[in-house]
């Protein structure tokens, strides 16, 4: 169910904690990038999260999901930083795609950038809910715990995020209709 969860950690001994943290790093990075839209900032967030977690290991309950615990710490760190710094300057167009392991084809690259742009237009609370449920593989209940809100709130944020994304992407695909100039003219309100 939770694709990213490395499973529950049954004790607080150094070796198993280190192992669980290491296993969580890739998905923590993916979540951090989706929050901050900036790869360098995201990696700093992950580092702060690991240090904070290690220093506060006493508050981790053995037997529970360490991945969810780490996500909670990262999300709270981001939120408190966010209040101070406002939103980080997003990576410039294409910079993110350039950093990708699998380079998208030209056509899907355009689509990818459009999608990322649309995602970044969502309010932060909707975006994090959508990513936790739709990509990280957390249940609604786990996502609610990570975000410190009710399950119903997560559900409605995810729904609003999906609706808004669909609207944004539908508008873009209409703009991309291309050769049908008459139709484009209708949409731009012009007569040529």
């Amino acid at each position, binding site marked *: 169910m939770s694709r990213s969860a490395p499973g529950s950690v049954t004790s607080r001994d150094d070796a198993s904690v280190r192992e669980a943290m290491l296993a969580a790093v890739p998905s923590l990075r*993916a979540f951090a990038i989706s929050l901050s839209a900036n790869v360098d900032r995201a990696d700093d967030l992950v580092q702060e999260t690991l240090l904070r977690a*290690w220093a506060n290991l006493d508050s981790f309950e053995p037997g529970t999901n360490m991945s969810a615990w780490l996500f909670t710490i990262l999300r709270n760190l981001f939120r408190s930083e966010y209040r101070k710094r406002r939103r980080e300057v997003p990576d410039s167009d294409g910079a993110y795609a350039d950093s990708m*392991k699998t380079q998208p084809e030209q056509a899907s690259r355009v689509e990818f950038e459009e*999608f990322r742009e649309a995602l970044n237009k969502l309010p932060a609370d909707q975006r994090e809910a959508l990513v936790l449920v739709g990509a990280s593989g957390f249940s609604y209940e786990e996502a609610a715990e990570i975000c410190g809100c009710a399950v119903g709130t997560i559900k409605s944020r995810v729904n609003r995020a999906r609706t808004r994304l669909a609207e944004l992407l539908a508008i873009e695909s209409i703009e991309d209709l291309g050769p049908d100039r008459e139709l484009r003219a209708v949409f731009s309100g012009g007569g040529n």
Partner: protein
Amino acid sequence: MKERKSLRPESAVQVRSSSARPDPALNREIQTKIGQQLRAIYDDVVDQGVPDRFAELLRNLDSQAARAKIADKDAGE
């Protein structure tokens, strides 16, 4: 001259309304695509694995015994 019904305004209205409120089939298609693209972006980062800086960071974390000692010392001051 034969009366010619212009199709243009009508088709424009159709497209316009579908962009404001996509029909259920189109909506499903878009939602499937949104799910795929979201996971593609996410999984690309996940597939990058653990960058060296984090593996090193975790290796270098003090043992808990050492931390406990520091904590005790802090508490004693």
